[in-house]
């Protein structure tokens, strides 16, 4: 907290925080207001006498109705949910085992391997989708959820591994040694002691992986083509922008509904999430 005179608190705390909050929340507000605004207001020219971009007197749910009934939005939601959950599950499982091994087991080149895994995370997706497209075609997985369930882990596993590796390192190794003296073989010490203690780390890795797959765009755009296979980000942008016509109301309704699950997940686990990132176990 800022100490001293009241004006100092205003200048150095309240004003910057308010500016920050407004800047961050404005896009969401814009999304909401555009969703609720009737078309005749949305497309009113800015020079019109009754132009009021930040407010509406006639809110409507028409865009949401159109989105849910006239597009495949609910199918896209289901697709996205299924793909994100499956990709997250696979990545967490692999990340857990890899992270544990890299942080706890002594084997040659462990450090090098850890760094190598991190480097793969740094390869941009915009490059990686080219060879991956070839692989997807060879395995005949194109235009199916598997195309994404199996390619998302290419960037999720390195991410989960790295995050969990850091978290495991913060857990005192005596816990595990004590479990092993107590009569647990290494895998039991891992499952009964280390994993439960690492739950904040595991949750934050899971939330992050889920969000990344939920919002992923490039792979979904390239590997899926039929409308009923698409995910929310791709479905909304490809089906609601026809030629140069933007269906702004439906687009924003799609963006709004699409962000609800992620917001839901975050708000539930936010405390775990923070302690997972800062990583600490108190004895």
């Amino acid at each position, binding site marked *: 907290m800022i100490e001293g005179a009241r004006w100092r608190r205003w200048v150095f705390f309240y004003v910057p925080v308010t500016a920050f909050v407004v800047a961050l929340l404005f896009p969401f507000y814009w999304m909401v207001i555009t969703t609720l605004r009737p078309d005749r207001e949305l497309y009113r020219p800015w020079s019109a006498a009754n132009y009021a971009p930040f407010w509406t007197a006639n809110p409507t749910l028409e865009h949401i109705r159109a989105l849910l009934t006239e597009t495949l939005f609910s199918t896209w939601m289901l697709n996205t949910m299924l793909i994100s959950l499956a990709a997250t599950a696979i990545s967490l499982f692999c990340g857990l085992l890899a992270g544990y091994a890299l942080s706890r087991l002594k084997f040659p080149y462990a450090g090098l391997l850890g760094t190598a895994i991190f480097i793969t995370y740094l390869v941009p997706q915009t490059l990686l989708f080219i060879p991956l497209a070839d692989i997807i075609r060879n395995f005949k997985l194109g235009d199916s959820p598997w195309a994404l369930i199996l390619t998302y882990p290419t960037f999720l596993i390195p991410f989960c591994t790295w995050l969990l590796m850091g978290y495991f390192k913060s857990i005192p190794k005596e816990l595990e040694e004590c*479990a092993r003296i*107590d009569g*647990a073989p290494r895998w039991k010490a891992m499952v009964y002691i280390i994993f439960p203690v690492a739950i904040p780390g595991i949750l934050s890795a899971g939330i992050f992986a889920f969000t990344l797959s939920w919002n992923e765009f490039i792979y979904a755009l390239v590997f899926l083509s039929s409308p009923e296979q698409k995910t929310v980000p791709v479905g909304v942008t490809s089906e609601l922008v026809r030629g140069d016509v933007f269906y702004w109301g439906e687009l924003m309704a799609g963006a709004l509904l699409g962000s609800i699950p992620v917001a839901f997940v975050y708000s539930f686990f936010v405390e775990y999430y923070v302690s997972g990132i800062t990583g600490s176990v108190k004895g």
Partner: protein
Amino acid sequence: MARVAMRDLNKMYDEVHAVIDVNLEIRDQEFVVLVGPSGCGKTTTLRMVAGLESITGGQISIDEKVVNALPPMDRDIAMVFQNYALYPHMTVYDNMAFGLKMRKFDKAEIGRRVKEAADILGIQELLKRKPRQLSGGQRQRVALGRAIVRHPQVFLFDEPLSNLDAKLRVQMRVELKKLHERLGTTAIYVTHDQVEAMTLGDRVVVMRDGRVQQVGDPMELYNEPANRFVAGFIGSPAMNFASVRVAAENGTLWAESEDMRIKVPPRVAQRLARYTGKETTLGVRPEDLRIARDGDDRDLGFDVAIEVVERLGSEILLDVAAGATTMVASVEPTVTAKVHETTRLVINPERMHFFDNETEAAI
């Protein structure tokens, strides 16, 4: 209950030789303390007994059975760690029951043993709590409880009292001693605190730089240190050392320096004779120095300047200087000594120690 034997035990980490040729026989029901400054190899030795560190050379046997290749879970030992290592997500009960569950004890037996251990340690009312709800001393008890429920052959303690505050440490030290009396389990205890070592150990092993310096019961280490390191490490305040030259005159030996000239008692003279004309180190404990009175043997005294007076109540510590040599003397609380005064101290002739300057071994 078991004997533990280490033969020619060695541990190498890449370039560092952490434990060098340790040979130790620990008898059944014995409480042995490994003590030394940090980095002396005591913890590494303990961890090798536990099976948490691989053994580079030599062998360890527990109850006549070589355990070099045995994983920790099969050695039938229990260990208490410095940071307690309580499982933070389990209750106290589950913490204590974990080892028994892993060994597939039935529920009733687990309940009985946990209760028994909780009674011994006075933590019955804490069983439902999580470790984070406990104070340091309570955590320490739970860690002990987790070790004793298993009825292991050997207890291993790795500086278990170091994280407690000074008062609690003294209290837990006494309880540990009582616990050992009661259970009689063979125990190996590692500490850097020589007071803990002296008070707890049936026998104490002093280590330095990976090597065992001396093994013996506490009073033996105190009264007959094998070398200068043990002499300086055991005892508080530490033993005083002064560099002296051995001189022979009319059949008696003298320990001389610029500021003192002490007659060597006949008991030591025989062994010291071959050092005649050479430099050695004289060692005197603070309590073996006292203020000279009339009628004291003049040949055992020397003049000093008092630099600091520390009044501890039961005794007074005088920090004194004899020329360039500084010493500490522990004298009766009735002594009226003042800073900057000069006074004369006498040495108890029965308790003079001499050390070889090259090998540091006791003469």
